[in-house]
């Protein structure tokens, strides 16, 4: 199993100032699989996923100990370029957050800032990303419209398309459906299922059914600790730890 891990988290401790927010986390994120992170509010799951592409770098007084490997390389090593890391590890956020630009420019932005200026190539890749995020049919004849005109679910799929356009290796989803209705949620889940053929996916969700539906592996976080990490099937049918069982059966959280 170790050989197919695209990312690996080793002995991770994360501090906010003096406060130890994540304690000794060890887990792997397997290639072309969906790894879900579940747990009650405040358990550190969002903090954890944001550490995986160094989005927490900017928080003052925060500190990361341990190693996070992407294809064997520690992304927190001093010689690593954080911009390059984020290009390889894309992210879709909790709240859909398109730029106040056109649908086309929202996707083209990532390409342009990464040095792709060839118009033909940009047009091709915008189209491909929109097709891959199952939005093309709905927006193909209004690419110039402002992204804010789309519905919430469409906006979130646009954000996914935007992340896909720069062809990352890993995509992190931070509660991508928490603000969406069930139909939009189903579409996004279906999409994640398709995306894992090409990408490695990690998703944070507070929705246990969602984790059970779409993930291959699940990690259960509680109070900054990874209580249990295993195949999703195992976690939901036969958890090894009492706390996991209490959580998935709805006894707290």
């Amino acid at each position, binding site marked *: 199993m170790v050989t197919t891990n695209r990312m690996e988290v080793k002995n991770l401790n994360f501090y906010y100032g003096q406060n130890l927010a994540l304690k000794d986390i060890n887990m792997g994120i397997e290639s072309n699989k969906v790894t879900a992170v579940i747990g009650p509010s405040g358990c550190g799951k969002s903090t954890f996923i944001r550490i995986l*592409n160094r*989005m927490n770098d900017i928080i*003052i007084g925060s500190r990361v100990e341990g190693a996070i490997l992407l294809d064997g390389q520690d992304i927190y090593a001093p010689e690593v370029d954080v*911009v*390059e890391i*984020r*290009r390889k590890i*894309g*992210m879709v*956020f909790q*709240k859909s*957050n398109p*730029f*106040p630009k056109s649908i086309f420019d929202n996707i083209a*932005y*990532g390409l*342009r*800032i*990464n040095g792709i200026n060839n118009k033909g190539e940009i047009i091709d890749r915008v189209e491909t990303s929109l097709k891959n995020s199952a939005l093309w049919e709905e927006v193909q004849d209004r690419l110039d419209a402002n992204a804010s005109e789309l519905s919430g679910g469409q906006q979130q799929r646009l*954000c996914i398309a*935007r*992340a896909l356009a*720069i062809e990352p290796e890993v995509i992190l989803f931070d509660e991508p459906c928490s603000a969406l209705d069930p139909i939009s949620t189903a579409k996004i889940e279906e999409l994640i299922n398709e995306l894992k053929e090409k990408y490695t996916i990690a998703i944070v969700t507070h929705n246990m059914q969602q984790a059970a539906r779409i993930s291959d592996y699940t990690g259960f976080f509680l109070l900054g600790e990874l209580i249990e990490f295993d195949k999703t099937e195992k976690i939901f049918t036969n958890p090894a730890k009492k706390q996991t069982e209490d959580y998935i059966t709805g006894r707290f959280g």
Partner: protein
Amino acid sequence: MYVNPRLEQRVVQSILWLFTAITVFILFYIIFFILKNGLPVLNYQFLTTNPTDMGKSGGIYSTIIGTIALTIGAILIATPLGVGTAIYLTEYTLESKITRVIRFGSECLAGIPSIIFGLFGFILFVTKLKFGWSILSGSLTLAFMILPTIIRTSEEALKSVPYNLREVSFSLGGTKWQTVTKVVLPSALPGIVTGVILSVGRSISETAAVIFTAGSALRIPTSIFSSSRTMAVHFYILAREGISMPNAYGTAAVLIIAILIINITAYRLMHKFMKKYS
């Protein structure tokens, strides 16, 4: 003492209404008074001919040019400085002692009376740096005076751009500079422009800081080293020295109309900006 709450409510409401009415009345009365006295002398000739006989006769053409030159100079100097400072404060540093000192300094700058700026500009630019009474000295002085406004409004505009847009840009592999120039600035632009326009209004109407630094020559300025008279200074001299009250009012009318137009434009832009991000 018991007061009927309903009666109390009524009395307070009437008093507050009265206060508002007085404020608005004063504003409209000033505008009305200036326009009533100024409009009769206003015509195409007044705007397009130079003052003659110290301003007793002729128009105000050279003072319009002087005002525009000084204002453009001040804006060209203050905008990059102010917007740059605001970008540094909001995007490149975290809230700390140093940013608080910078911010406090710029607030203090805003509280300094304009005549002090005039004196400072006179000593530094006019005499020490030997720029003389000139468009250059005047523009530099005005620039320092409007800097706090530009910093403050730009900062507010930058801060109102949702943080998550920056996060997305970073997550796509954007550098800080790419994020600032391609995401944050375009969104903040209307707010920044509003601040600049308000500063234009202040520059146009400034007298004390300008009279010390740009002088009061009635010629049309030919270079940035020419001395020049602005409309506000012209009005001041005409009225102060009793040269011509009708022409003074005429100048004031032009000034007040220009400022009204500028403020309405700024207000409209601000409104549009607020609507976009609320």
